């Protein structure tokens, strides 16, 4: 067992966990932040994407112990004062989801994409950048539209 401490959505947290605990398990099971999903558990689907020290990563492919001292932001950390983050609002307005399971990872990837590449994203760039996020419902059309709209408003 190890005590791990980090900042999650602006709050200092610490938990006693087994060394083999994945970051996503710490988030969901210890901190009850169940907005971060586990779709495939094999590092492919991107439902578990969160930001660690400002970078999008797959939280099913990182040990909680590796995030010791890190600044972690999950989907729950995006909305401020009851207002949806512009990217969340864009997914809502553009119907960028059907079942919604992949949505938290899509939005965290999208926010990271805008931070790295700027507010004006063409369709080809968005689709290329979504290679690590799978959606089994939508065919991606409205997801791409949502990300372009959200990017413009960020």
């Amino acid at each position, binding site marked *: 067992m190890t005590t791990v401490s980090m900042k999650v959505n602006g709050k200092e947290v610490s938990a006693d966990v087994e060394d083999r605990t994945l970051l996503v398990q710490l988030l969901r099971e210890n901190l009850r932040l169940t907005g971060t999903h586990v779709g495939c558990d094999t590092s492919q689907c*991107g439902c578990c994407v969160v930001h660690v020290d400002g970078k999008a990563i*797959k939280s099913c492919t*990182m*040990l909680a112990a590796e995030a010791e001292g890190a600044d972690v932001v999950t989907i729950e950390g995006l909305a401020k004062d009851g207002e949806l983050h512009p990217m969340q609002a864009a997914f809502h307005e553009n119907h960028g989801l059907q079942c919604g399971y992949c949505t938290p990872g899509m939005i965290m*990837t999208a926010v990271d994409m805008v931070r790295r590449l700027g507010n004006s994203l063409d369709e080809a760039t968005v689709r290329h950048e979504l290679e690590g996020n799978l959606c089994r419902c939508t065919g991606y059309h409205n997801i791409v539209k949502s990300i372009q709209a959200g990017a413009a408003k960020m």
Partner: protein
Amino acid sequence: MYETNFHRAGDLAEASRLFAAAKDEARYLAGGQTLIPTMKQRLAAPSDLVSISQIAELKGISVGSEMVTIGAAVTHAEVATSNEVKGAIAALSDLADRIGDPAVRHRGTIGGSLANNDPAADYPAAVLGLGATVHTDKRTLAAEDFFTGLFSTALEDDEIITKVAFPVPEKAAYMKFANPASRYAMAGVLVARMKDGSVRVGVTGAGQGGVFRATDMEKALSASWSPDALADIVVDPAEMLSDLHGSADYRANLVKVMAKRAVQATA
């Protein structure tokens, strides 16, 4: 995942100490983008993990007129977005930019990729194709001596890659045909003409023995640096991988097509 003990090393000496002190089988953990999934599938079960991704000695990129040196713990995203690397060896930043997906590139490291030597990984093609030197905490290894077969290298169990030095070529390009699901190379070819006029061709994703140099192509391109120079080259399917993603014949053809496209891209 089976139980394991996690240790974080602050420097190389501490990493070696922690590795030696492990009660059973220790493994170094870099970005973890292969090792953690492998442990989750219970295909690896080290008793101890020694995390080396935050060791300062393994960080940093330095670019000179003759050499680009990349620390072993530098991530794919850092190589892909380095303007200095792009200016010196665009083929290298381009290769790094097409590994996996953005989230994987934020964690995965060059040292981790090379130590694992997955036969479909991208970096081995650059190390062999550019004739890079792999530096470890014990010695330096030429690219030809480093790769010894599928998932195997000349590294000893407790040896750590510290940096990789790539000679700056006159021109080079990397082309890969990626598996559409995993983004691993089904055939990836790096072609390079070095400043001394020599030509090197490194091929990943396709060979039965892992990454290899396509010496017939090197000869043909030495005589004439053009895609057409490769027209009569025959890649032997008997030496190619065959799996559910593609037959040996298909891969043999892909190698040639990717090589031609890479040469074209340097024009």
